[in-house]
């Protein structure tokens, strides 16, 4: 008996072993090295020299602009995405008929899986001088600039992350017990009151899940600000690429990325504390 159980253990180890090696050498170890580097000094020729200093963290305000842009535009972009996503999720979950629903859902997801590079490229075309500003000039609005402004980055954020927001909201609305709505109507509430007091509160976990996903992914964006912010509106991701590939100040870059990941983990921790701790919504959220 003990020989079969030890054999079964070896089989298990062989099955998860390769994946474990990938995770260890390409995820855990590198992340630890980044943290070590963040306390180091910049070598003469760029790169890393061993040291133990908090100078890189003290120097973070030097990239304050990138942090400011990211920490204002990412939450605002998340809010806008939620506002645009909710009505569609509601339509899909409550109003759309069974037959069309699956197709409509797939159509929501598909753009999210196509090349991000190309989707934001399309918006360079639309928002650039030959696009919307050109059409606006026909109705007398000359010299409107959209590309390379915070507005362009926000439009891109909504466009890029709408699918990711719609899905969790849809799930929370779809599994909502429809008898509650009938009960509310029977008790004399009109449609808008039912929505405010029953539907909306019960779908908030979906909104919270979608918002967390979108916020975290937006914070780490590189292509979006690079294309639609055009060097004027840049995020932490852009500062990181610059620090690692151009100015080659690796220890400072490591401190910036550690700070960014720390902000993300705090967000996730808050989300788990306030949303996932409610057992009834845990299942709804983990889709």
């Amino acid at each position, binding site marked *: 008996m003990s020989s079969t159980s030890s054999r*079964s253990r070896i089989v298990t*180890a*062989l*099955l*998860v*072993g*390769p*994946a*474990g090696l*990938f*995770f260890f*050498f*390409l*995820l855990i*170890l*590198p*992340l630890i*090295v*980044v943290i070590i580097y963040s306390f180091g000094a910049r070598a003469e020729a760029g*790169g*890393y020299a061993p040291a133990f200093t908090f100078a890189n963290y003290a120097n973070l305000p030097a990239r304050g602009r990138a942090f400011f842009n990211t920490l204002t535009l990412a939450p605002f972009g998340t809010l806008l995405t939620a506002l*645009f996503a909710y*009505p*569609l999720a509601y*339509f899909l979950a409550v*109003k759309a008929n069974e037959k069309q629903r*699956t197709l409509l859902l*797939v159509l*929501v997801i*598909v*753009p999210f*899986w*196509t*090349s991000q*590079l*190309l989707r934001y*490229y*399309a*918006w360079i*075309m639309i928002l*650039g001088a*030959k*696009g919307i500003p050109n059409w606006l000039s026909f109705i007398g609005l000359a010299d409107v600039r959209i590309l390379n402004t915070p507005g362009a980055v926000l439009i891109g954020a909504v*466009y890029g992350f*709408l699918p990711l927001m719609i899905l969790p909201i849809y799930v929370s609305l779809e599994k909502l017990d429809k008898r509650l709505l009938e009960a509310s109507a029977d008790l004399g509430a009109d449609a808008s009151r039912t929505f405010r007091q029953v539907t909306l509160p019960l779908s908030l976990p979906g909104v919270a899940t979608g918002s967390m996903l979108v916020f975290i*992914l937006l914070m*780490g*964006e*590189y*292509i979006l600000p690079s294309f639609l912010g055009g060097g004027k509106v840049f995020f*932490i*991701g852009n500062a*990181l*690429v610059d620090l*690692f*590939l151009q100015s080659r100040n690796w220890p400072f870059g490591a401190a910036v*990325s550690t700070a*960014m990941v720390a902000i*993300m983990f705090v967000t*996730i921790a808050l989300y788990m504390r306030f949303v996932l701790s409610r057992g009834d919504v845990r299942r709804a959220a983990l889709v």
Partner: protein
Amino acid sequence: MRVYAAFIYVFLYAPIALIVVFSFNAGHYAMDWQGFSVEWYGKAFANPILTKALVTSLIVASSTAVIATVVGTLCALGLERMKGWLRQLFDALIYIAIMVPGVVIGISTLIAFVTVFDAVNPALEAIGIARLQMGLWTVIAAHVLFNLAVVVLIIRARLAGMDRSLVEASEDLYATPFATFRQVVLPALMPSLLAGLLLSFTFSFEDFIITFFVAGPNTTLPIYMYSSIRRGVTPEINAIGSTVLVSSLTLLMLAQFLLRARTKAR
């Protein structure tokens, strides 16, 4: 409500359609329609840098897809047999691999590779073996990392929905564990395996940011496209873009179809 839904779908698909429409533009500027032409497709595919980048991307994406699917499937099967803290550790790693932004994955794998190279290369030179350096293999390794996590999630969802009684029946009929795997589990996993293969191929093929850090001197298609987009908007990019879009949409639809066939089977 319907009008709003229609508006959102137009908003989602119009930019994609625009790329395809202007790839057939005869003019030199993407948003300045000068008549219908397919010349940009010809020009794009006659550009040797571009075709080389395409081949590089195809090699990276197919290697990544195969390795990620095999390693990810094995891992999902192994996790089924595990309990306790080690399993929770793997769960945490899978979510970390998916949630940590591409920029950070790129940076940390870059640093890790460079650190290893610096440590190993003097020794390798001493015994006369070629130095380790950034190449396609570093790109593939970094791509496998995040796709592996996606594959584990897909396969695990399928395993969770599987009818255990079939496995028990097979065991009762004295099938060896391997025979049970080959004749019962594997066929049931097939659609999810193919979906994982297609998804990791697409994700790897389209990845820009991780590749940007670890590619060394190599140019993949997204890297080529990124640098030409930064130089300006041209119908040539639209032509390449449309080709990529149409092929990846086909693969994604196929993956969706396979994943849905799975749900129906349940």
